[in-house]
């Protein structure tokens, strides 16, 4: 491991020694309305761990899709082992020795591990041979997995293992990983780093895409930083501070969020008592015996790796799943709401922001005006005797846009045209303007640019300061530690007891996220 680090440092310092494995120059790619990659140059050498840093929307994903042959650049040259090539599909990339682990896994839930690996295998082996090779490679790299299991029955960490194994079976020279730790517990992430360092020391180059500065500093020998589709710097992250890299990445200085004093009121706004729920998704997770409460003005964070019951918990709290036979296990303001639907719970003063923005929290194909009406049709006086009051709806939409700094071209604009950050500001604004007594938010800043993320977190804290009880379900530990008063962890459908932020450590929460309860 230390050897490898030395090696990559040498490659870095007198760059002539190692011939570049991959050399991109002047790569440009545009989509309607966006210049995603603007004359990008990138060189990756054999055996180095090279970070590609950038915010959401900086063009990282576009660039790696070009390297993997999924997209064709509009201009620029692609050199592999010092000869100019062009890729028209991923099979060609794999034949060259390029492997890729996707952020949103490219796995098939209804197929087995073995089938999932066989399908990405260009040697067209039969399933039995593939199963044998899986066992062999997974032992060698310490990535245990049962080839006959169906993918939907696996945890997120195990799913990522399949993706990595898939690449390793091809004996890659360059392995691309797109935000691999966003779905892992801190402990799983450090295991992954060991595997990656082993790989690098055996000569495989790794292109590591991330926006998390600390892990880039500990893992990578070189970092190329992208902003708005262009390279703004190439540096050695070990010689930089997280702060300097963040400023390069974001371009403006961000202010830290200040927490106001917590209210000294102990009125229980939201109380969950022994909630059990059977998931209505065959690939979902059942909730077991979940209990917690949130007081007036308090922010409770529920950490956990995706797929441990977050979707089901959100649905149970919002009333999208109502259990008719359940007892008094969900109370809002001391009133049992277990048997109530979404509309009745909203009428109680609760608001919800689900994780999925398009198709759940908002409708792509509808105007901002229509989306403003989506959750407000019962609460505010926008509908009289069944008829829509167009003027009032316009006013509300306008207010959301101006109060929450949503950048738009007008009220009739189709929502699909909003960027991730603006869309989330709009959705959260719509809910906050209803002055909720209880707000339940899932992944509030997921995939959102840093500026918008700060704005959104600040809005949440302001709301809490006005007395609202807030539940935040998030996989982003930084976020949880930044804004929550208490933290609990959801693992395999069960919830740990909550810990105050002051007494919690990232290590401890990380262990809970991985299912280890013992101290």
């Amino acid at each position, binding site marked *: 491991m230390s050897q490898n680090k030395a090696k990559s440092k040498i490659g870095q310092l007198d760059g002539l020694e190692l011939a570049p494995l991959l050399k991109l120059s002047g790569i440009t790619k545009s989509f309607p309305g966006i210049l995603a990659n603007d004359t990008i140059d990138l060189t990756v050498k054999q055996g180095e761990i090279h970070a590609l840093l950038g915010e959401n929307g900086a063009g990282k994903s576009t660039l790696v899709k070009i390297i993997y042959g999924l997209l064709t650049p509009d201009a620029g040259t692609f050199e592999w082992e010092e000869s100019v090539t062009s890729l028209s599909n991923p099979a060609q990339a794999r034949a060259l020795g390029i492997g890729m682990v996707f952020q949103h896994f490219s796995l098939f839930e209804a197929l087995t591990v073995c089938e999932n690996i066989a399908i990405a295998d260009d040697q067209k082996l039969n399933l039995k041979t593939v199963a044998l090779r899986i066992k062999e490679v997974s032992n060698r790299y310490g990535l245990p997995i049962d080839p006959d299991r169906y993918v939907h029955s696996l945890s997120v960490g195990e799913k990522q293992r399949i993706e990595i194994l898939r690449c390793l079976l091809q004996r890659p020279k360059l392995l691309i990983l797109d935000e691999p730790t966003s779905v892992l517990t801190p402990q799983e992430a450090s295991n992954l780093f060991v595997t990656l360092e082993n790989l690098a020391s055996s000569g495989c180059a790794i292109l590591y895409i991330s926006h998390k500065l600390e892990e880039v500093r500990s893992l990578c020998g070189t970092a190329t930083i992208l902003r708005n589709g262009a390279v703004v710097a190439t540096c050695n992250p070990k010689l930089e501070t997280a702060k300097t890299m963040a400023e390069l990445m974001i371009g403006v200085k961000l202010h830290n969020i200040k927490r106001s004093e917590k209210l000294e009121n102990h009125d229980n706004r939201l109380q969950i008592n022994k909630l059990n729920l059977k998931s209505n998704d065959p690939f979902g997770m059942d909730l077991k015996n979940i209990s917690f409460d949130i007081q007036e003005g308090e922010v409770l964070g529920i950490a956990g790796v995706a797929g441990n019951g977050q979707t089901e918990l959100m649905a149970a709290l919002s009333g999208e799943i109502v259990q008719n036979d359940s007892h008094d296990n969900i109370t809002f303001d001391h009133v049992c709401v277990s048997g109530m639907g979404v509309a009745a719970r909203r009428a109680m003063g609760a608001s919800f922001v689900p994780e999925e923005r398009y198709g759940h929290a908002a*409708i792509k194909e509808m105007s901002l005006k229509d989306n403003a009406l989506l959750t407000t049709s019962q609460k505010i006086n926008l509908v009289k005797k069944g008829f829509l009051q167009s003027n009032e709806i316009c006013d509300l939409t306008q207010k959301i846009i101006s109060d929450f700094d949503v950048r738009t071209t007008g009220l009739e604009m189709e929502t699909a045209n909003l960027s991730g950050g603006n869309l989330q500001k709009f959705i959260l604004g719509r809910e906050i303007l209803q002055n909720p007594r209880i707000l339940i938010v899932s992944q509030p800043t997921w995939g959102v640019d840093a500026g918008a993320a700060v704005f959104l977190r600040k809005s949440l804290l302001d709301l809490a300061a006005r007395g609202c009880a807030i539940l935040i379900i998030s996989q982003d530990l930084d976020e949880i530690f930044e804004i929550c008063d208490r933290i609990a962890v959801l693992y395999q459908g069960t919830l740990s007891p909550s810990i105050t932020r002051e007494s919690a450590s990232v290590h401890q929460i990380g262990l809970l996220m991985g299912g280890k309860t013992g101290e």
Partner: protein
Amino acid sequence: MSQSFRFFPKFVLEPRLEVSGQWMILSPIIAIILTLFSGIIIFSLLGKDPFLALYTFFVQPLTTMFGITELLVKGTPLVLIGVGLAIGFKANVWNIGAEGQFTMGAVFGGGTALLCQHMESILVLPLVLVLGTLGGILWGAIPAFLKTRFNANEILTSLMLSYVAVLWLSYLVHGPWRDPAGFNFPESQLFSDYAMLPILIENSRLNLGALFAILVVLAAWILMARTIIGFQLRVVGLAPRAAHYAGFKQSGLIWLSFLISGGLAGLAGIAEVSGTIGQLLPSVSPGYGFTAIIVAFLGRLHPVGVLFAGLIMALSYIGGENAQIEIGLPAAVTGLFQGILLFFLLACDVLVRYRFSHRSVLTGGRCE
């Protein structure tokens, strides 16, 4: 299988930033023009003078007053059913069994008319109309129930029930409801005048049903554009999860879609037998229930659009009849035209949401 093998490599579509309102209107017009061009080819293949055939098909019927009233007569059921289907399709509820609901409207309303054969009261007609509409609602309620209660696919159930409804009518007019004085023909007695919709223009078959169609168009327009129910139907059609999240009752909206479309198809059915035909026959519809699917799409699922689309499709019916009489074209040409029109419409509709990429020429391997 070779992975580099692709169909139509240069044909690149890009999503538009916003739905094109212009193409929304242009698309059906272009589809109609393309269909007329295919008409020229088809008529030539059939050995007819294509321009004479087009004239007899699409122009000649409109040169007489009677022709115009007939257009409205055929348009009435198409618009009534089409409006109901358009509302359902907007909500992503695929009721394609309108033919059956139409037939059941005729059966229930016609049955009432036969029962009241000797009753001389102005109340007979309203009773006939209400029961006819109820018949359609009832037949539409079955797939709605099966969908909401048992999750059964409404496309298949509503269609299967159409076959059942048509066979049921066939049984009735061959058996219990056959006119005893009808020389064993499979048809019912003629309805009494009290059960008939009043004729609007003398010496034509244009009846009060046409007025119903216009009222229904207006009501549906207001419902979809101005009310919370219309908003909920649109939301559930575009994003069912968002509707659920907003607190809209999905099963209620499915029920509503089916009751509206079934009821309107039933009303169309009873208006057809008590306005135009005057008795029950083994078949009361030349496929109105299916043609109305095209009407709904051609009319952009908008009630006013459906009004125009209904008239255009009505023209294809009377044009087909006229061409059969005048130049001996097979009646089936009408059905073929309808199918082709829908194909062209769906193909043109791609341009509402997508546009051809300007860069499609550039992307061809400029990676060097």
